């Protein structure tokens, strides 16, 4: 073990405001991006199915919440991110990315325009520090400040029953809250930001609240939702849910070495915005000829493709690599996302090297699952 590893191993993972709740629920906890998070409470397959058929309750308080505020906040984010953020209307949200000058992805983000000069940027837990550092540097020349929230919680309610549960919690309809929008709300006397966003492929809501209120809101949502089938859901099912929905995960499909184009997400790079932005020149060039392309794979054997496994052509030559793979609880067969070298982007039949044996797989369109 190297010195660096020793440091990482001895640093105690951080606990979210809901840690005691997870312990009392008997969760299996795991160190995820420096946070002690619930991997699952009972069975990850049961939690996955609950989100597809009823609702799941998630603690996402590990994610980075960064306020970007100031008279030039919109222009600052237009410069810092790939998206055309100044076009986002008050109360709306946008999926976007923050790229390095060479076009590599620092993180994928959701940006909420809370109103006028106030934006909330949500970063992955593993990248929160890097995103905050990059944003701080990039907004420095604008009349804008970036602040990383401390002691903030995030609770998600995801699944077809989520709208009714949220309506019971806020005492009014959510009809005026479309997908990728947010509004202020009061739950049990607590002022929260209620957003209709998620990472599961289902209708769902995310509640940004102060840490000290999180356990009370969690208990309320549990009692309001349990009759409808809501159960607590961990990170394990969150990963299979997003994989079925064809959503990329940073560290798997997205990284500093790849561009949004390769991941099939060129739409988030707004080369049509008039202002310059970090990574613009490199992305304009790298977007014209991506070196690899992200595809979906349907495993035809029962063995499961996993992150890092080689993808082979009919002759056994390596033509790509699996980025994420799992047995799909909804579909009942193994699914994966993989990068194929650009020269092989059109193939339809491949094999995956699963511990030395070439298991057949079919290239299929993403996503694997779309809600009705």
């Amino acid at each position, binding site marked *: 073990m190297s010195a660096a590893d020793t440091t990482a191993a001895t640093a105690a993972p951080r606990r979210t405001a809901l840690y005691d709740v997870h312990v009392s629920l*008997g*969760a299996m906890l795991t160190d995820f991006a420096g946070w002690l998070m619930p991997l699952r*409470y009972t069975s*990850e397959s049961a939690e996955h199915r609950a989100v597809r058929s009823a609702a799941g309750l998630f603690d996402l308080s590990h994610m980075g919440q960064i306020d970007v505020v100031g008279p030039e906040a919109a222009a600052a984010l237009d410069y810092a991110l790939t998206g055309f953020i100044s076009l986002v209307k008050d109360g709306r949200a946008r999926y976007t990315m923050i790229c390095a000058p060479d076009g590599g992805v620092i993180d994928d983000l959701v940006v909420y325009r809370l109103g006028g000069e106030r934006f909330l940027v949500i970063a992955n837990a593993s990248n929160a520090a890097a995103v905050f550092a990059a944003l701080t540097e990039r907004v420095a020349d604008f009349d804008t400040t970036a602040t990383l929230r401390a002691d903030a919680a995030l609770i998600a309610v995801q699944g077809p029953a989520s709208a009714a549960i949220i309506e019971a919690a806020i005492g009014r309809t959510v009809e005026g809250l479309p997908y990728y929008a947010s509004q202020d709300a009061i739950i049990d006397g607590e002022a929260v930001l209620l957003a209709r966003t998620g990472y599961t492929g289902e209708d769902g809501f995310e509640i940004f609240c102060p840490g000290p209120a999180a356990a009370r809101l969690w208990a309320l949502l549990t009692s309001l939702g349990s009759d409808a089938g809501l159960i607590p859901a961990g990170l394990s099912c969150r*990963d*299979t849910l997003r994989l079925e929905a064809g959503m990329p995960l940073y560290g798997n499909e997205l990284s500093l070495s790849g561009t949004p184009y390769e991941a099939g997400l060129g739409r988030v790079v707004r080369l049509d915005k008039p202002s310059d932005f970090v990574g613009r020149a490199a992305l304009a060039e790298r977007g014209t000829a991506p070196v690899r392309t992200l595809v979906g794979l349907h495993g035809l054997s*029962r063995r*499961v493709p*996993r992150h890092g496994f080689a993808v082979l052509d009919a002759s056994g030559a390596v033509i790509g690599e699996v980025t994420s793979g799992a047995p799909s*609880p909804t579909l009942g067969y193994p699914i994966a996302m993989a990068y194929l070298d650009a020269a092989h982007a059109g193939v339809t039949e491949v094999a995956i090297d699963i511990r030395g044996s070439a298991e057949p797989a079919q290239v299929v369109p993403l996503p694997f699952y779309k809600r009705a």
Partner: protein
Amino acid sequence: MSRKAGPSVSNIPEQLRYTSEHEWIQRLDTAPAGPGAAVVRVGITDHAQDALGDIVYVALPEVGAAVAAGDSLGEVESTKSVSEIFAPLAGVVVARNNVLDGSPELLNSDPYGAGWFVEIEIADPAQLEGLLSAEAYAEISGG
């Protein structure tokens, strides 16, 4: 089935023997073919199934396969990971639990019963003495 945060008390039957690879071994009364031989049943422990999560696929060896201690016997795929099963003892596979082909979830629900893997005829029953007692296994598995 309940799982606890932190050290959990998992089920470790007293009458079984164990390996540090979280497998259990049970000596059966089944009459062995060879003189002086013994037949054992092998599976994974409650602690192991709990750590793996929901098991979706189990690959088992065919009957008649000869195995040395430490050889791969097959693999267990769960939602999050795949684990190899190692032969705890040297011998010949005399039975495999075919039910697991269609119902791999039995490993989660009944690891010491319906979720068994294989039966191995071991030529040298003295090998059994090198295995862990329930108490020794409880110590290493934190149970």
